[in-house]
């Protein structure tokens, strides 16, 4: 009986709302829709990218039971002879996998496979090639995936020039694989011609194995005795590795989307709370007419659910559109550069979309929870009296829960990463924010009571706010949530950018830098070229680096190994910790912070690194800060590395100019000397720094966008609150005008109220934001990306944003007041609000 009664009451109230205040409902629905759309959009982009990533990995692995991987450097092909001869092995498919520098710039991943056997394991990928392998065996023949052919603008019969060291070679494009074969940018060559043409004789990066039926994969794997640095992965591990690469980034985006949704929930709370206050008499009348408390409460909740359902539906649809647009415009990693030019379709199934609609409803009902309770508490007799003043917020009740939440938040911030993610950090932020919101009325009441104004207009504004602390608190809370999160994010990003900027200055001390870019396996600078470079007129000093990759754990992305001068170097390593223990006479390795987090490297420890197929012992001499590689980086002395691999080639270098040497001309001469075509970048330190910072800003662009939307939703709430209050106070304005106040002064009063509220919100939001930023900088960022930041408070920009917020609040208040106080507008708006 109660629930049908509630539905009837809800329908009555809701219908009245819809008739009288469609705009108010529309704003609430819109806020939920925007929140859900962002959450769904980000989720769908991530999910679709992951599904595509998994599909591509599975396609590459195919029917293999085990994949033998040796990282970028690969392993000696003798391992293939050994494994292929094992009686348990049915198919052994050798693979050369190289990122090949193209003469026209950029790289192309080239797989050198044996088309005679690869088709048995990866029919989807190589099926087309198996039946007609003869053309692929022709010298320099390459087949391209449809995506690669399209992006390179070539078709079958064309030529493709690649860069190998200082030489260029031309490949013949013999075929373009059908679109269905493989979605990513990829070239396929015969394994033998890839080894020969691409300068990788004797080495393989991968062997895909299919075992005979009945062979125990685990036991076989355990019996393999692989060289150091070579792993035997099951297909599941290969897939997890791809997902791990981007996990922290994806979770961070998910969290930002949730913040937007949370802000949306707040807006529902604000609109519902204000609606309940505004409709006190209406609701009281319903009570007097026989509606029970429970019915009234349920009615408000149902109204919230209806708003949520509408918003959720709109939001889910909008989310799919956002995901589609984002995937088309930015790709699966939102421009962060993790995936290589894949075209990804949105993977949105009905159950996922239904979940997002449900999320919208849940969030909206949660927002309506307190207002529903307030509605049920209305005492009809008292509320029906004209001029009933609302109850003052019961401040004392709020304190214990708020303090408890705050303490919980602080405790959680000290927690370790969970499955490699800063989940405790996020929970800490949520709790701290909750505590902050609980304390808003207390803060508002305390501050407003202490404010004194001498002139009549501000005094009026202040008096009004003081009289309606509960309503003001709701508006304030909406400002606080969005503004504090924005402040926290701004501090985090600023600290990051500032640290990054200073770090760049430290690691780029030379005048000119050159490097193979993007990183490739085929382009490099030879010792002869390096010697010629040192003897160039105008060159004072040259320092050469070789950057390669090591695979230390099968499920983790590879670690960068930087072989560079250490003892006699002019490029300092930004060390943050040094070993105090004595070195037992081993070569030194300096580990980046990520190595400490991901592989538990500690200064003073002895570690084994797989170099040249054998484990080599190193002494961890220190930990350094590296913002370039969140997967980890190791720096060792170049001479040590070259002695191990019996090979000298360089991928990066720094050049110091002689006094009065002309940088621009020298740069051109170096470029000509190194003859690396488009793949070798010679660039001035300042320009390189600028480009790095631009890339940084690009990567954070999506973060800024999400933040801006959260603040916009918050401001929308403020505007809404003012509009409703202004309408409620039409009689009061009339009275003030009657008492001699000019319309301009009424508007000034309203704007003043807005400004005071804005200032309170900005002040409180700043305080809360600083607290939250501590968690972001020292917990979330640290645990996500494994690097530490120097905390920097961007006082100027924050003050500017705070002033902008106050101005926006005043302007919103003034504008709504303008609408309300214009005589003719009153009637027109009355129909609506």
């Amino acid at each position: 009986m109660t629930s049908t009664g509630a539905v009837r009451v809800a329908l009555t109230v809701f219908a009245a709302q819809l008739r009288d205040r469609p705009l108010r409902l529309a704003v609430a629905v819109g806020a939920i829709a925007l929140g859900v759309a962002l959450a769904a959009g980000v989720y769908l982009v991530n999910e679709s990218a992951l599904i595509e990533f998994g599909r591509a990995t599975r396609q590459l692995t195919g029917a293999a039971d085990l994949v033998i991987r040796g990282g970028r450097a690969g392993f000696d092909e003798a391992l293939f002879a050994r494994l292929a001869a094992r009686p348990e092995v049915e198919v052994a498919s050798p693979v050369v996998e190289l990122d090949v520098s193209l003469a026209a710039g950029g790289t192309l991943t080239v797989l050198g496979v044996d088309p005679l056997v690869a088709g048995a394991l990866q029919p989807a990928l190589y099926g087309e090639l198996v039946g007609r392998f003869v053309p692929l065996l022709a010298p320099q023949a390459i087949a391209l995936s449809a995506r690669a052919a399209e992006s390179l603008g070539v078709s079958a019969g064309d030529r493709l020039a690649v860069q190998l060291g200082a030489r260029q070679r031309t490949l013949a494009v013999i075929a373009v694989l059908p679109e269905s074969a493989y979605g990513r940018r990829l070239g396929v060559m015969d394994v033998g011609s890839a080894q020969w043409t691409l300068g990788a004789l004797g080495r393989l990066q991968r062997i895909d194995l299919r075992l005979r039926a009945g062979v125990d994969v685990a036991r076989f794997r355990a019996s393999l005795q692989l060289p150091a640095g070579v792993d035997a992965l099951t297909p599941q591990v290969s897939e997890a590795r791809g997902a791990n690469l981007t996990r922290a980034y994806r979770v961070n985006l998910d969290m930002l989307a949730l913040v937007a949704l949370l802000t949306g929930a707040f807006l529902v709370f604000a609109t519902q709370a204000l609606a309940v206050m505004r409709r006190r008499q209406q609701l009281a009348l319903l009570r007097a007419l026989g509606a029970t408390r429970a019915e009234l409460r349920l009615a408000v909740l149902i109204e919230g659910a209806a708003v949520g359902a509408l918003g959720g539906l709109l939001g889910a649809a909008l989310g799919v559109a956002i995901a589609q647009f984002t995937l088309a415009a930015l790709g699966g990693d939102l421009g962060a550069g993790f995936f290589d030019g894949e075209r990804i379709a949105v993977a949105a199934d009905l159950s996922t979309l239904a979940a997002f609609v449900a999320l919208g409803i849940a969030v909206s009902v949660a927002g309506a929870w307190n207002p529903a309770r307030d509605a049920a508490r209305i005492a009809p007799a008292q509320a029906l009296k004209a001029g009933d003043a609302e109850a003052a917020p019961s401040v004392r009740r709020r304190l214990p829960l708020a303090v408890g939440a705050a303490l919980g938040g602080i405790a959680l911030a000290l927690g370790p990463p969970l499955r490699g993610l800063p989940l405790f950090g996020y929970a800490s932020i949520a709790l701290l924010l909750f505590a902050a919101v609980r304390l808003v009325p207390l803060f508002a009441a305390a501050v407003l009571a202490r404010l004194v104004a001498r002139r009549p207009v501000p005094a009026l504004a202040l008096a009004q706010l003081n009289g309606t602390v509960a309503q003001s608190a709701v508006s304030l809370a909406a400002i606080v949530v969005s503004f504090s999160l924005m402040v926290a994010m701004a501090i985090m990003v600023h600290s990051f950018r500032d640290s990054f900027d200073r770090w760049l200055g430290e690691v780029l001390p030379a005048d000119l830098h050159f490097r193979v870019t993007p990183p490739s396996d085929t382009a490099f600078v030879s010792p002869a070229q390096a010697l010629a470079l040192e003897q160039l007129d105008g060159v004072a000093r040259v320092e050469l680096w070789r950057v390669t990759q090591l695979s230390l754990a099968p499920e983790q992305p590879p670690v960068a190994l930087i072989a560079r001068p250490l003892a006699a170097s002019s490029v300092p390593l930004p060390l943050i910790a040094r070993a105090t223990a004595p070195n037992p006479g081993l070569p030194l390795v300096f580990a980046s912070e990520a190595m400490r987090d991901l592989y538990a490297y500690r200064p003073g420890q002895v570690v084994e690194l797989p170099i040249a197929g054998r484990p080599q012992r190193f002494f961890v001499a220190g930990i350094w800060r590296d913002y370039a590689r969140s997967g980890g980086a190791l720096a060792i002395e170049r001479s040590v590395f070259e002695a191990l691999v019996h090979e000298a080639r360089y991928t990066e270098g720094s050049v110091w100019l002689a006094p009065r040497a002309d940088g621009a001309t020298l740069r051109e001469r170096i470029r000509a000397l190194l003859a690396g075509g488009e793949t070798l970048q010679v660039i001035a330190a300042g320009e390189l720094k600028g480009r790095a910072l631009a890339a940084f800003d690009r990567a954070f662009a999506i973060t800024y966008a999400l933040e801006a939307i959260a603040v916009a939703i918050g401001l929308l709430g403020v505007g809404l609150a003012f509009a409703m209050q202004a309408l409620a106070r039409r009689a009061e304005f009339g009275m003030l005008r009657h008492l001699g106040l000019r319309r301009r002064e009424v508007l000034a009063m309203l704007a003043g109220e807005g400004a005071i509220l804005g200032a309170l919100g900005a002040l409180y939001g700043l305080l809360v934001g600083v607290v939250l930023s501590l968690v972001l900088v020292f917990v979330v960022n640290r645990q996500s990306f494994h690097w530490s930041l120097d905390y920097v408070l961007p006082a100027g920009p924050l003050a500017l944003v705070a002033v902008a917020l106050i101005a926006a609040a005043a302007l919103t208040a003034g504008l709504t007041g303008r609408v309300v106080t214009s005589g003719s507008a009153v009637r027109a708006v009355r129909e609506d609000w």
Partner: protein
Amino acid sequence: MSSRRQAAARLGVLALVTALTLAAADYPDVLPGAEVHLPADAGAHPLFRTEWWYVTGWLATGSGEPLGFQVTFFRTRPDGDAANPSAFAARQVLIAHAAVSDPKRQRLWHDQRILRAGFGLAAAATARTDVHLKDWSLAEQGEVFTTEVRAEGFGFALTLRPSVPPLRNGAGGYSQKGPAAASASLYYSLPQLAVTGTLERGGHAEKVTGSAWLDHEWSSAYLDAAAVGWDWVGLNLEGGAALMAFRIRDAEGTPRWAGGTLRAADGAVRILWPAELRFTPGRRWRSPRTQVEYPVEWQLQAGDLMLELKPLMDDQESDSRLTTGAVYWEGAVEARSAGQRLGRGYLELTGYGERLRLR
């Protein structure tokens, strides 16, 4: 998709036609006057484009159940970069086919393999008959040949003992395959091989005996541009005689060339010229898998010998598109004359679906 695949197939054919007609300079030609010298020629001839060792025969189980079997090792030399020092460079590609025709179960067991030579996984020795792809092999072991196949669902290990001397086909082994003299192969056969060994079907192994035929043939220009396929038969005749006969067809199905060798029981060899051979197709059978239609019964006139060829079973079609690229019919047949069995052997019908592609 299907049109793309067709286009791809056409492209492949085109590449091969080009390769075959251009007959690149570094592939040796087989010209009139060339001869087979045994035992020196028993091993592989790696410079030639194509080579095969082809064993076909009839088997009988202990209970007298008749079966056909064939195992073939192909060698092909792709047109690669001769200077490539990579151990993976595809200097030689080896292909193996194996099949057992099982009329009782109306089933053709068959499997195929392809590997590039190297790393000890696949090789064809040059000094003697010795070719293997992992654990599939055919090798000379003193007086006898042994062949072993471990395939999907079936396998065999057989010993083949020659009972008559090798038979050089054509003029001393020079076997012309078309009107042009350069379209030819070097070719000898070992008929009347006595077979003993074990055969395994579906996990069940049993002893078998029988008689088989070994062909060894190599060439750089087998089919000329106008030829699309051939009909070939090798028969172990009663009393120790043997007949090999083939004809090459063009796109219209008309014979472009024919040839054969007939050795009587007393050892007298007669070379058969195109005019002396007449292949008359009889009953046809359509493959339910590929929809290709094959004449599975024949009237064969070879010199004054008139034979009827009847298959052990109809479905002896081999789909080897994944290895040699061809779909063909290769099956055990019985040769009769006036209702009386004259011999047993194997019949091969190629180029009935699309033009035969030789790699």
